């Protein structure tokens, strides 16, 4: 057993209101630069939809993530390194600008400087790449609230369901899906990088790209099945979400977490067994979720704590892991699921699937519905969050409803119906999911560990977790 610490995030989709505040604040902090105009380290998609970039989930097309070949884990882009390197000269699976969208601005100046005319002046769109006039045909969020039904119908998850999208207005469904880099335990981008520029940070598992070492070979871009690595056309190097590491090191949440008006995001530490990552990633498609839960270790277990100390994990990390909201939601309550576990990268951003309105037919007769009686088909959620296995999704949705049943019975002072967990568990879930304070939603260890206050002040701003010159 080799224990590592991992910063992780849970998003409670049940509370996501699709406002894009996370995307905007993230963009303002990280990608409002030339070359990065088109990048959204965090974006919010409306599902069903093809998303950003177009059809990112379709691995037949992009060949992202991993596959199991003769019992061995191999990159889907090919298990032979030499053949993969031939793609340095032209990568057939690399997305291009138009797969995302051509970023633009408007000629605002004309509004101020046009001469007196009969008609109102118009600010026409201008490409931020070529600076020429352009027609806007697609944007980073073209499908917002099902605004583009033709493309929404092409969502691969609908195909996976083997079901046509409901076309009747009263049967329509949609949900929001905020996406960022998953800081995976088994990142395909890292494995695909020819230069070795991408790495998992040893201290907290954040996946970063060294801008010095990156040579712009671009193999990471198609390799990431979530398409969360972006090629900067100006610096000609790859960039990605950094999990706001300068903030996280200070014990502050990521920007997207901090600014979320719905407070749907939780940040915390998980401890996992590094030796069993490969085993989890090469499991049967539908078992990956269970296996990855298995390698996440109980931070309160004295054995685990001892092994973690031996592995050099600072006490502050272990204490944070003990109070981790992520551990509770993912492991104790089985509420949150990974996005597309079948890509086998073992994502460390987790989603609590959303409840949805009761379907029309049973609306009148139902107060609290079953999973089947809600608008978003369970099969659809299962295609997103559990490789098509409906079990985990049902489990999670049922639990969300149990919380409501329990809390309702408290309010109405009725005897609560028989529920699978004890009452205080539901109370705890209710507190964490509904009314948790910032200190409960965000449990991150701050600063350089095992250093005196004076030393820390001296080192301020000089480096990441460990200190310059080694300490």
């Amino acid at each position: 057993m080799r224990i590592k610490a991992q910063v992780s995030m849970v998003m409670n989709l049940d509370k996501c209101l699709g406002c894009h505040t996370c995307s905007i604040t993230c963009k303002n902090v990280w990608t409002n630069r030339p070359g990065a105009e088109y990048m959204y380290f965090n974006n919010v998609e409306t599902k069903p939809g093809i998303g950003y970039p177009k059809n990112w989930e379709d691995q037949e097309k992009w060949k992202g993530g991993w596959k199991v070949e003769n019992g061995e884990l191999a990159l889907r882009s090919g298990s032979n390194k030499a053949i993969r390197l031939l793609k340095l000269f032209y990568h057939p699976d690399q997305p291009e600008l138009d797969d995302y969208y051509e970023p633009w601005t408007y000629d605002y100046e004309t509004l101020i400087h046009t001469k007196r005319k009969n008609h109102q002046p118009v600010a026409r769109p201008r490409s931020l790449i070529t600076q020429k006039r352009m027609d806007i045909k697609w944007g980073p969020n073209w499908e917002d609230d099902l605004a583009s039904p033709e493309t929404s119908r092409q969502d691969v998850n609908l195909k996976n369901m083997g079901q046509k999208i409901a076309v009747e207005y009263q049967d329509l469904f949609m949900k929001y899906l905020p996406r960022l880099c998953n800081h995976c335990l088994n990142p395909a981008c890292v494995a695909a990088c020819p230069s070795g520029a991408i790495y998992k940070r040893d201290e907290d598992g954040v996946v970063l790209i060294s801008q010095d070492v990156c040579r712009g070979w671009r193999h990471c871009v198609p390799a990431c099945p979530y398409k969360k690595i972006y090629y900067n056309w100006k610096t000609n190097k790859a960039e990605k979400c950094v999990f706001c590491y300068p903030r996280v090191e200070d014990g502050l949440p990521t920007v997207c977490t901090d600014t979320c008006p719905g407070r749907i995001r939780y940040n915390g530490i998980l401890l996992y067994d590094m030796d069993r990552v490969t085993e989890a990633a090469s499991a049967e498609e539908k078992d990956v979720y269970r296996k990855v839960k298995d390698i996440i270790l109980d931070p309160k277990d004295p054995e685990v704590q001892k092994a973690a100390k031996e592995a050099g994990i600072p006490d502050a990390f272990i204490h944070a892991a003990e109070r981790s909201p992520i551990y509770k939601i993912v492991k104790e309550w089985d509420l949150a699921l990974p996005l597309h576990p079948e890509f086998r990268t073992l994502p460390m951003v987790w989603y609590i699937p959303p409840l949805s309105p009761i379907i029309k037919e049973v609306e009148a007769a139902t107060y609290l519905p079953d999973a089947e009686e809600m608008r978003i088909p369970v099969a659809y959620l299962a295609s997103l969050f559990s490789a098509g296995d409906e079990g985990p999704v049902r489990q999670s949705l049922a639990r969300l409803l149990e919380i409501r049943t329990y809390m309702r019975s408290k309010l109405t002072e009725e005897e609560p119906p028989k529920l699978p967990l004890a009452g205080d568990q539901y109370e705890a879930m209710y507190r964490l999911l509904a009314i948790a304070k910032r200190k409960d939603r965000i449990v991150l260890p701050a600063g350089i560990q095992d250093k005196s206050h004076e030393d820390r002040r001296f080192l301020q701003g000089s480096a990441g977790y460990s200190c310059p010159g080694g300490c």
Partner: protein
Amino acid sequence: MKFFIWGVLPYIALFMLIFGTAFRYWKFERGWTSKSSEFLEKSSLKYAGPMFHLGLLMAFGGHVIGILIPKYFTEAAGIDEHVYHMIALAGGIPAGILFLGGFLLLMVRRFGKDRMQVNTSQMDRVLYLVLFLTIVSGFAGTLLNIPGAFDYRTTISPWFRSILAFSPDISLMETVPPVFRLHMMMWMITAFIFPFTRLVHCLSFPFTYFFRSPIVYRKK
């Protein structure tokens, strides 16, 4: 003047090539990249990119053989001048076609497509001109010398080796035809500007990728 061109200039060029490049790597690694433009303009790269690079590798291999292996070596191995020339043409002409053809396609792409303008710096324009003259002069030399009247392996090659041995013999360059002289000038210019251009990415071919573990962990 002759002494400067054939006895001094090569050293200036090689000095820039080696120390300039090392300095750039040491001081400005942040800007060291292949400068790929596939993201902006994909379809036109499909054949042009691989063609150019394959032609380049073939041409490079041919130059290594032709320049670094002395004539008495191949003759001792039983390959006479005529056979050697035929082998050189059999490799050199396809290499030239791929190399120059790929380069022309890349030029059309670079200067003909709207979005490519944002990926083209002033240095790229200079580089395209220099490379164009280098490739054309080299390929023209090969084609004009099909009859085999001029033997570069008794003139240019020993001259180049004399440069490497730090005892330049400029008399060897006296009988060299103009097109080959131009080619010699061009490689010196290319070597001189090498550290300032995107060409540096050729030194970064990721051989280490074959030997490293898939997932990299790094402590700061």
